[in-house]
């Protein structure tokens, strides 16, 4: 399952919304079809529809779902707290998921398509990941969660890439960052996350 789709599903589960997943088969290039292009002109997944409103970009979709569902995972009633959520959501996107993405692609997708993992790309990105994890370790030694002592979308948004990190061959990279390891375990233990993980394990995912 696309990490970006998983992110949106977790938010739907957090607010207890009813939803339908419409599969878009990327292995057959369905995401580049005219029908999908009409939904997302950048040809990516997920696309989200709520009545007449069509959205893409998983973190934008996630915020919409959480606001509409009355969740407190954005802390928008508090200026300082919501600012910290925005900061660490950007960190997730720019430093964590962006370095995990090529690792996941090389280690999982490339072999699945019959190719050979480019270990140079994996190593380069693992080094970048370790740099980021160093920052996270310092942060999580001071605060229970990334944005402060409250859980937020900034934490949960890490789960899709974290799922692949925890299930892959580079999990030991986390051993040097005990606070990060404990924090990730807590995120993965959320009922919403566990529910989506089950969906991710399905062969059709």
């Amino acid at each position, binding site marked *: 399952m696309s990490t970006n789709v998983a992110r949106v599903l977790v938010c739907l589960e957090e607010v207890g919304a009813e939803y339908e997943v419409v599969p878009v088969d990327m292995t057959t290039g369905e995401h580049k079809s005219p029908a999908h292009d009409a939904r997302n*002109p*950048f040809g990516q997944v997920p696309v989200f529809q709520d009545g007449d*409103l069509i*959205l*893409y*970009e998983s*973190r*934008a*979709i996630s*915020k*919409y779902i959480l*606001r*509409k569902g009355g969740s407190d995972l954005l802390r*928008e009633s508090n*200026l*300082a707290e*919501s*600012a*910290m959520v*925005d*900061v660490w*959501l*950007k*960190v997730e*996107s*720019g*430093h964590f998921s962006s370095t995990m993405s090529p690792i996941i692609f090389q280690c999982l997708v490339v072999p699945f398509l019959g190719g050979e993992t480019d270990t140079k790309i994996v190593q380069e990105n693992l080094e970048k990941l370790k740099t*980021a994890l160093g*920052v996270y370790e*310092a*942060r999580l030694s001071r605060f229970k969660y990334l944005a402060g002592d409250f859980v937020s979308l900034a934490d949960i948004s890490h789960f899709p890439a974290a799922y692949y990190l925890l299930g892959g061959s580079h999990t030991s990279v986390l051993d040097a960052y005990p606070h990060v390891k404990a924090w990730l375990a807590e995120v993965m233990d959320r009922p919403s996350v566990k529910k989506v993980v089950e969906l991710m394990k399905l062969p059709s995912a």
Partner: protein
Amino acid sequence: MEAPVKVFGPLLSPNVTRVILCLEEVGVEYEIVNVDFNTGEHKSPQHLQRNPFGQLPAFQDGELMLFESRAISRHVLRKYKTSEVNLLREDNTSEAALVDVWLDVEAHQYDPAIAPIIYQLILVPMSGGTPDQKLIDESLEKMKKVLDVYEAQLSKHKYLAGDFVSLADLSHLPYTVHFMATPFASVLDSYPSVKAWVHDLLSRPAVQRVISQFPRY
């Protein structure tokens, strides 16, 4: 009196410019504190306290320290919002969502295409290097594909998130202003709606106040 709002980093650095544009839009007093990239000041212990990734900008508003320019921009526009300056549209769930969508599009699609062009044409020569023409050409091709989508969107709506200006539009300006000063500015001639949108944004008084401080190349 010392302004409570401080932006750390040089005005011309695009991610710093993004924040300054927002501060000018809401009309809040601020101070720019330079951080000397050339001497590696952005990796100094003092700056790492403000931005643990050693990047620019960092931001201080009273007790609150922030980094990541788009997060800072959101904070500025949320805290100092007025009845005239409503650039996040948070009073309307659908409009706010569309602002979020196009702000992420800017970060994930537009920025990766345009930033290497600016970096190669402007920053690399400044440190005595030679621009990588292959990278410039590849980035221009990427940018044109992105502009195709923008042209379609902006021929339907005055601005990206709808018929109202928002942070999503303004966030494009820092790199775009530099782009307009390169020989490739004529690329926009093939995208009339995009061109008109850029000129509309550039004519905003707050934007003019900021870019009038840029040197002419």
